[in-house]
C-alpha cells in the first residue's frame, strides 16, 4: 500500500484489517497519534484526512491510499510549534498529554469547520453562529481528556481562534 502522510510518500505491507491508526503507529512509526479506546469514543487518534478531522481507529488504511493524511507530526515540530501546540503549552491544556495530539488535530479541523460557517448543536441559529466557548466545548466533545484539562483546552483554542478571526470573536463577546 502507498500513502501520502505529512506530505511524504510512504509504503507499507500491511494486513487488510489494519486501521489507519495502526498503520501510522505500528508500520510507519508515527506514534504521535494515540490509541485510547480504539472504538471512536475518545478522539485520541484524531488525524486530518483531506483536511477533515476523523478517528483514525475507525477506518481501514487500505481505504486511504489516495488521500492526503496529516498527523500531529505534520502540524509542527519541537522547534516550530503549530499555533495550537504553542497555545496548549501556554495555557497548560494537558496534564498527562496522552489525548493532546488528538485534541490538537481535532481543534485544527474544528476551526476550519467554523471558518466554513458550519453550525453546531448549540448554535442558536444555523447560519453564521457566534463562536462562543460553549461552541468550542460542543464541537470538541469527541475528544476526551481523562485528566480533565478542559478549561485550559478551551482557553488555548479560544486564543488561536481569536487570532485567526478577530471579527467573529468580537461578535461572540
Amino acid at each position, binding site marked *: 500500500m502507498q500513502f501520502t502522510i505529512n506530505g511524504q510518500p510512504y509504503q507499507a505491507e500491511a494486513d487488510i484489517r489494519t486501521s489507519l491508526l495502526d498503520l501510522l503507529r505500528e508500520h510507519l512509526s508515527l506514534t504521535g497519534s494515540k490509541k485510547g479506546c480504539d472504538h471512536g469514543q475518545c478522539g485520541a487518534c484524531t488525524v486530518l484526512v483531506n483536511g477533515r478531522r476523523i478517528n483514525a481507529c475507525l477506518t481501514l488504511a487500505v481505504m486511504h491510499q489516495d488521500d492526503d493524511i496529516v498527523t500531529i507530526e505534520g502540524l509542527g515540530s519541537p522547534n516550530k510549534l503549530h499555533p495550537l501546540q504553542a497555545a496548549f503549552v501556554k495555557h497548560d491544556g494537558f496534564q498527562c498529554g496522552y489525548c493532546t495530539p488528538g485534541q490538537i488535530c481535532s481543534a485544527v479541523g474544528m476551526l476550519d469547520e467554523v471558518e466554513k460557517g458550519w453550525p453546531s448543536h448549540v448554535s442558536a441559529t*444555523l447560519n453564521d453562529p457566534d463562536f462562543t466557548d460553549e461552541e468550542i466545548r460542543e464541537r470538541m466533545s469527541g475528544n476526551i481528556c481523562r485528566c480533565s484539562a478542559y478549561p485550559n483546552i478551551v482557553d488555548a483554542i479560544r486564543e488561536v481562534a481569536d487570532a485567526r478571526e478577530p471579527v467573529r470573536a468580537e461578535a461572540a463577546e
Partner: protein
Amino acid sequence: MKLFDYAKADSAETAAREGAVADTKFIAGGTNLLDLMKLQVETPARLVDISRLPLNDIEEVDGGGVRIGALVPNSDLAASPIIRERYEVLSRALLAGASGQLRNKASTGGNLLQRTRCYYFYETASRCNKRVPGSGCDAQQGFNRILAILGTSEHCIATHPSDMAVAMRALDATIVTLGSDGEKRRIAIGDFYRLPGDTPDVEHVLRPGELITHIELPAAPAGKQTYRKVRDRASYAFALVSVAGIVAVDGGKIASARLAFGGLGPMPWRDTAVENALVGQAPSDALFTQAADLLLRDARGFGSNDFKIPLARRTLIATLRELTA
C-alpha cells in the same frame, strides 16, 4: 477482527452485483461497521468498498424536494445551505448526533443502517436474538435503561440509534436503491424498517446486494421545525428520547403536525394517530397531554427503562409547546 476479502467497487452496478454474494457487506464511512467487526459482532467474509462511488451530491429535484447522495457525509448534509434553509429539523438532528470526527466520516446511507447500541448486542458473551437468532434476549431482565418501550417483541427490545433517521421519518423521506439485478426501487422510509417480531436480526427490507444510492426528501412541509433530544450527557450521547417535530399553526388551530421519535422503538417511530389528534385543534396543554397518552397507549417498560414513559410524555409536550408558541 476476522479476516475478510476486500474489493473496491468502480460503479454502483458492480457494487450491487458483488454485494449479493453471500456474507458480503458494503463499507462506506465504516464508523459503525468497523466498530462491530473489532468486537466480532459483525464478521463479514467480504467487504465491498463503495466509498469512492460518485454519490456525493445534494441536488434540488422537481417539485421542490432534494436528492441526497448516499455517500454525503453527515457533516456536509448538516451544513448544506439548502438543508439548513428548508429542513432545519434534519440539520439539527444530525448535529445532535455523534462527534465532529464521526460526522465527517459517517455516510447518509450508513446512518440509516446503523445497528442498535443495546449492550447485549455488543457483548458477545450475552444472549441476543439480533446477533445470534434464537439465542434469547438478556436485555429484558438486564440493564435495559437505554432500550425500547414501543414496538418491542418478546425476542428483542433494542432501539434504533439514529437521530438523522428520526428527522427523515418526520420529513417522509424516500430511500432510492439499486438492486443486484440492476432494478431501481423507491422505498418510503415508513416502509423501510421492520419491527423485530420473531426475526429481530432482520431490520429493514433491503435485499442482498441492494445498495442505497440516494435519499429523497419531498418539498419542505409548512410550519416550524425542531429536533429535541434528551440524553445522559450534554453532547456525544445517544438519545434516551428525541422528537423531530414539524407543526404549522393557522388561525389559532394546528393545521398540520408531523412527529417522529427516537430512543423509544426499534425504528424511527411515527404514529399518525398522534398527529391526527392534534390537527384542527387549538394548542393547549390538555391537547398535548391527550397526544402523549395516544403515543404511549401501548408503551411497556422493562424495569430500568420505565422512566422513558414519563420522559417521552414530557418531551413531547415540551416540543409541542415550542412549536406552537
